[in-house]
């Protein structure tokens, strides 16, 4: 097994510093060593052809040529032990409970603001706070039916939350397809190593959504539909995949209208009411009557039906306020305020550039920091100090000075690495992890594993698929 040395000392999830294999990867290593030379590479080529044929692609905004691009898949699994996972899930559970309590509070009495724990300013100037949700409690009291928590790791027991995704987190189809692919390519591997199942996620999602049926639902099985912006959306594959796996209709805005006091879909037999809508359309486009009036992706009047108890919208509109990067830095306080417990999963240390002291520090240390836009996503509009030129830093510094409250800064973390398969053999690359969490009135359900994103370029810390990141199958070992 060859291995390049990482540019800086990072926690290698597979190998101890002395080169011995960590216990989590022991079973995998035994299998790997028994594989004939060239086997893995051949399988990698097979996997790519398989993805192309099945159409597992994503669309890149602004890319002229590539309508559909593949997210590179690496065949070396990312492995988490049962013990590590237990701790992670406790932390995730706690955080997601806090997020839902926070959202309910923000759209009601705002006790956390009254208590002075979160500044009013963060809500006042925040477009993600939707007044249309004030005073309304969604069916079952659930705001974030689906959450993705982005975790990074810096040591054996050091997991931190990098970001919460409480709007419409994507990527779960890759978690499922990556596992399918691994099982198709290396079936014997799964007889050697016992890995916890992820494939029932769609069934659990369907059950979780059905448990949040609105007051107007009458019958024995709620009708669930997935609302997609359409086939040109970057995550269309995932929308179709989830609808298919759940046995739900995949609808577009043009299939829906308000009819008979409900939101109904146009079927070949007539208009049929929808009980729960899993929307993959942003708040702003959801209802031209309530939000962006020029939107054709949503349903006119859906907010009225929603407030009247005629439909469940998952996730609830207005959840974006809880995963805003400016709010993020208050998450430890938020977790404590609503759960009465110390946070199990820490945040990545964060400087709020809106605070003068923090800003001064950030400006002095730009070369060592990662600076992010408060409302940005997907790795756009950020500065990674250590890999930026002097000119880039100077240019960014000007932007930062002009609008400090638009930015937060974090240290450049030495993210853990997992090997990927390269021409020259295994080589460590930085990874993160996005577990997927379902929330229903019956509780919080975390699928063991999640989506591991990996920066394919040596030394790179950017794992976003839109910026050249790849994915891995993520294993949680069974006890």
């Amino acid at each position, binding site marked *: 097994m060859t291995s390049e040395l990482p540019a800086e000392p990072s926690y290698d999830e597979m190998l101890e510093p002395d080169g011995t294999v960590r216990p989590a990867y022991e079973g995998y290593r035994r299998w790997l060593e028994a594989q004939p030379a060239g086997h893995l590479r051949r399988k990698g080529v097979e996997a790519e052809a398989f993805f192309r044929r099945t159409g597992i692609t994503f669309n890149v905004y602004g890319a002229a040529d590539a309508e559909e691009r593949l997210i590179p898949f690496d065949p070396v699994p990312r492995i988490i032990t049962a013990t590590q996972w237990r701790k992670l899930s406790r932390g995730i559970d706690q955080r997601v409970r806090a997020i839902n309590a926070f959202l309910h509070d923000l*759209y*009601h*009495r*705002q006790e956390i*603001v009254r208590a002075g724990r979160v500044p*009013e300013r963060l*809500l*006042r100037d925040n477009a993600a706070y939707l*007044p*249309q*949700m*004030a*005073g*309304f409690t969604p069916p079952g009291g659930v705001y974030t039916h689906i959450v993705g928590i982005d975790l990074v790791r810096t040591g054996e027991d050091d997991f931190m939350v990098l970001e919460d995704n409480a709007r419409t987190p994507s990527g779960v189809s890759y978690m499922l397809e990556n596992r399918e692919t691994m099982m198709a390519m290396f079936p014997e591997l799964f007889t050697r190593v016992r890995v916890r199942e992820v494939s029932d996620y769609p069934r659990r999602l369907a059950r979780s959504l059905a448990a949040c049926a609105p007051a107007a639902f009458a019958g024995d099985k709620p009708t669930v539909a997935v609302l997609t912006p359409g086939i040109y959306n970057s995550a269309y594959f995932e929308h179709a995949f989830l609808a298919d796996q759940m046995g739900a209709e995949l609808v577009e805005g043009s299939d829906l*209208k*308000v*009819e*008979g*006091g409900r939101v109904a879909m146009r079927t070949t037999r007539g208009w049929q009411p929808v009980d729960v809508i899993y929307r993959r359309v942003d708040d702003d486009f959801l209802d*031209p*009557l309530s939000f962006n009036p020029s939107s054709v992706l949503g349903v*006119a*009047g859906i907010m*009225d*039906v929603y*407030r*009247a*108890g*005629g439909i469940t919208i998952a996730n609830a509109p207005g959840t974006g306020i809880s995963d805003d990067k400016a709010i993020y830095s208050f998450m430890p306080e938020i977790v404590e305020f609503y759960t009465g417990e110390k946070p199990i999963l820490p945040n990545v240390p964060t400087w709020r550039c809106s605070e003068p002291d923090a800003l001064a520090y950030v400006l002095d240390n730009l070369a060592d920091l990662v600076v992010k836009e408060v409302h940005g996503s997907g790795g756009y509009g950020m500065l990674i100090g250590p890999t930026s030129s002097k000119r880039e830093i100077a240019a960014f510094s000007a932007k930062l000075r002009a609008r400090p409250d638009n930015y937060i800064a974090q240290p450049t973390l030495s993210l853990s690495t997992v090997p990927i398969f390269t021409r020259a053999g295994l080589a460590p690359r930085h990874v993160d992890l996005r577990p997927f969490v379902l929330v229903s009135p019956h509780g919080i359900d975390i699928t063991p594993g999640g989506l591991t994103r990996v920066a394919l370029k040596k030394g790179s810390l950017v794992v976003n698929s839109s910026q050249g990141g790849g994915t891995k199958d993520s294993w949680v070992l069974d006890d």
Partner: protein
Amino acid sequence: MRLSIDHATTYQFAGPVRQGLQRLRLTPATARGQTVIAWDIACDGAVVEVGFDDEYGNRVTLVSLTPGAEAVTIRAQGLVETRDEAGVTGRHAGYLPLWHFARETALTAPGVGVGALIAGLAEGAAHDRLATLHVLSDRVAAAVTYAPGHTDVATTAEAALSAGRGVCQDQAHVLIAAARALGIPARYVSGYLLIDGRETQEAGHGWAEGHVDGLGWVGFDVANAICPDDRYVRLAVGRDYLDAAPVKGLTTAVSPKDRTAAARDRMAIALSVTAVSGA
């Protein structure tokens, strides 16, 4: 005083309607100063889809237009018992924080006109909001003369100021913009007004409310230079007219009979507000 209200809004479309929705905020609520005795909304050419209370506490009725209809009439009728509270409507209620009413909206964004209007009032606003609002109300009345026909529902506060004339809605928007520029939460109220000697009116009424610590929300009707009394009925409130409009016609798709520009939708209002003897 007991007021009898009959308010019919008719839309005449350029052709048969294919689909369309209208959001009605046409149901007054019993509150300080007014008790609703009877109220009813009837639609012709539309059916009620849902009703709910919005984030401002307004009763909203969503109706969908009947496909094929060429006109729709929405008629709200009822009896409301009113009391003179000198414009005070009370403590802030509901889950929207007060700061929400201090943020600008597109219709009430302050510019040079509002800046000039509030000149010298900043200090007063800090310690006596009520007095400041009275001064503002007078200034608005002087700056925007009541004159129908020069503005429409999309006219901004700044535009009304620079035109120097407008209707009650424009005056309310200017007052709201100015109050907010001084840090005073303010909101728009749509409703009805009994006008002596005028049984029929062409339009509903609109005025502003500012928030005064201790008193709560206090109304100012610039057009009539008065704080609302028992001749007023409040229908709905919001940050500006768009939040509180009694009828908001939306996404109306019609199949025009002839495609000439003349074939535009037309709206007509028949409103009567009368005082009746109490039971």
